[in-house]
């Protein structure tokens, strides 16, 4: 069975690396210069803010205002400060707990729902898909008001679990949409072969659909992780207690009425951003194909 259904052949393939350099050279010299300039511009625009963040984080003179793109006076003091005194160790643990819980719950629910809409025909299926699409468009700011009142009434403010529940809800519509692309790409024949072999539906789901949906699960997990890790509105609204801050909310304390500790802000920002970026680059092929499956396939 496994050789028949190698997962990678079923995933929507990402663009990079598929095709050998298409018609390079043979062009006029002018357009080659233009392409090179374009590449340089894309690199600069994409990476410039990241470079500024890293430089400010490790520069002892960050708060004096520096115009250098590279640190002039290298130091780790900013990191030491935000981790020890800035409470970032707690915020990182909180964020990790919230994001990982969101990933587990959201991916599981999205997988089940996506299999249902991608592999069955039933009444109200289209209506359901339309509903998923529509609620994806609802702005968080509209829901933060009633959810805040609800959470307050239920005594859920300052509880990390309250954030998890909200983040699952917010990542779910797009996660379903994304998973649906992967689940729909699995050929019917593979599923039927399992039935011919005498498998029940749960058995077929476990040994056929689940492994084939694995790349989709990776993409959805990254998506829900980032949604939860980066979320700001609910993090500042639900959490008033410093001990329950997430990283996105924790940065605000370095802005005081006496001024901004930019070295600390950027050290904290680096701690928030780098793990996500490394993660992102590692799974970029899966992620871009997932987004394409979700957004383009519709």
């Amino acid at each position, binding site marked *: 069975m496994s050789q028949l259904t190698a997962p990678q052949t079923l995933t*929507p*393939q990402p*663009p990079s690396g598929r*095709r*050998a*350099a*298409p018609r390079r050279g043979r062009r006029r010299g002018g*357009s080659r210069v233009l392409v090179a300039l*374009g*590449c340089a511009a*894309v690199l600069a625009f*994409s*990476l410039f*803010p*990241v470079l*500024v963040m890293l430089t400010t984080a490790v520069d002892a003179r960050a708060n004096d205002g*520096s*115009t250098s793109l590279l640190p002039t006076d290298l130091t780790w003091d900013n990191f030491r400060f935000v981790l020890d005194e800035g409470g970032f160790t707690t915020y990182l643990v909180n964020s990790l707990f919230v994001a990982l819980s969101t990933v587990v719950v959201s991916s599981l*629910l999205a997988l089940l*729902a996506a299999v*249902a*809409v*991608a592999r069955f*025909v039933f009444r109200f*299926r289209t209506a*359901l898909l*339309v509903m998923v699409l*529509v*609620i994806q*468009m*609802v*702005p968080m*700011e*509209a*829901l*933060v*008001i*009633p*959810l805040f009142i609800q959470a307050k009434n239920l005594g859920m403010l300052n509880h990390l679990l309250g954030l998890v529940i909200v983040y*699952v809800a917010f990542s*779910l*519509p797009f996660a379903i949409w994304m998973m649906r692309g992967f689940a729909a790409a699995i050929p019917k024949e593979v599923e039927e072969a399992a*039935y011919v072999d005498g498998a029940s*539906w749960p058995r077929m789901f476990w040994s056929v659909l689940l492994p084939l949906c694995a790349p989709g699960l990776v993409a959805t997990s990254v998506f829900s992780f980032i949604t939860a890790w*980066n979320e700001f*509105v609910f993090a500042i609204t639900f959490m008033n207690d410093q001990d329950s801050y997430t990283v996105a909310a924790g940065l605000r304390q370095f802005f005081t009425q006496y001024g*901004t500790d930019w070295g600390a*802000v*950027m050290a904290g*920002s680096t701690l928030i951003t780098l793990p996500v*970026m490394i993660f*992102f*680059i590692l799974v970029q092929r899966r992620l*871009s194909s997932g*987004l*394409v*499956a979700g957004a*383009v*396939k*519709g």
Partner: protein
Amino acid sequence: MTSTIASVPPADEERRTGARRPAGPGPRRGTGLTPRWLPWLLLAPALAVLGGLLLYPLYRVLVLSLQDFGLRQLVTGESQWVGLDNFAELLTDPLLWKVALPNTVVFAVVNVVLTVGLGTLVALLLARVGVWTRGVLTSAIMVAWAMPAVTGTYVWVLLFDPRSGMVMRGLSTLGLVDPDTTNWFTERLPFYAIATLNVVHHGFPFVAVTVLAALMTLPQELMEAAELDGAGAWRRFWSVTVPLLKPVFAVVTILSTIWDFKVFTQIYLMPGGSGTNRDVLNLGTWSYITAISQNRYGLGAAIAVLLTALLLVITAVYLRTLFRQEEL
């Protein structure tokens, strides 16, 4: 193998004639092997979450917008119906017409044009370069994409900070601005120009990656045929690429529109954006500040309802596009 991406340009003849697409995965109707309630069982947990945490609050915000609901009501739990009073107050407030609505709409339009334009240019560039260069560039734009809104906003604020900002310092070294008298965050136009840099930087990678993926599925033969017919690069782009990629452009444009309409964090975190400078409010920040900071939940809800209604109109356009593609 029909991959998901490969099916982007809809195979119209096949659909019209009802012919089955090769290796078409397609959903199945009950064959007796699976009970009819199985899909609903699989959907139940997701539906419970979506209903309880998205649909019910959406109904609640509508109800709140028709109520007088302030701090006292939050404590006692009782509330009073005021009909459309909140909306009357909202629609007669000059802040809506002169500040919040223009800030929201103009910003969204400008940012969508810039994001989709830049994203498409980058996609075309990526399609032309070699595999190795493409890998490096894709990683770079992924970095821009992965930068969280919160930290990204702080970096742009730092860059333009009157005291410590690199841009401001550079310009003052050149004698172009006086950092003691210049603050770009206090006025709408420069404020939103900085926000635009931030949002475009964060948004163009999605467009670039999606358009590139679609570009790679275009049949190379069409391009070569057009080239043989003497069409230049410009002509080939507008006459071959754009019509074929129309569905993809529609989707990225509408998704960007929705995202740029409800942009919140990037505005709220800039100096003055959290309510101290009312000139820079947009619908999202106005609604949040009115409700959560000023405890006027009813009025805040009314603003939120207005924003949601605007977004639903755009969503309707999105759905029409999808239905025309027969992709659902």
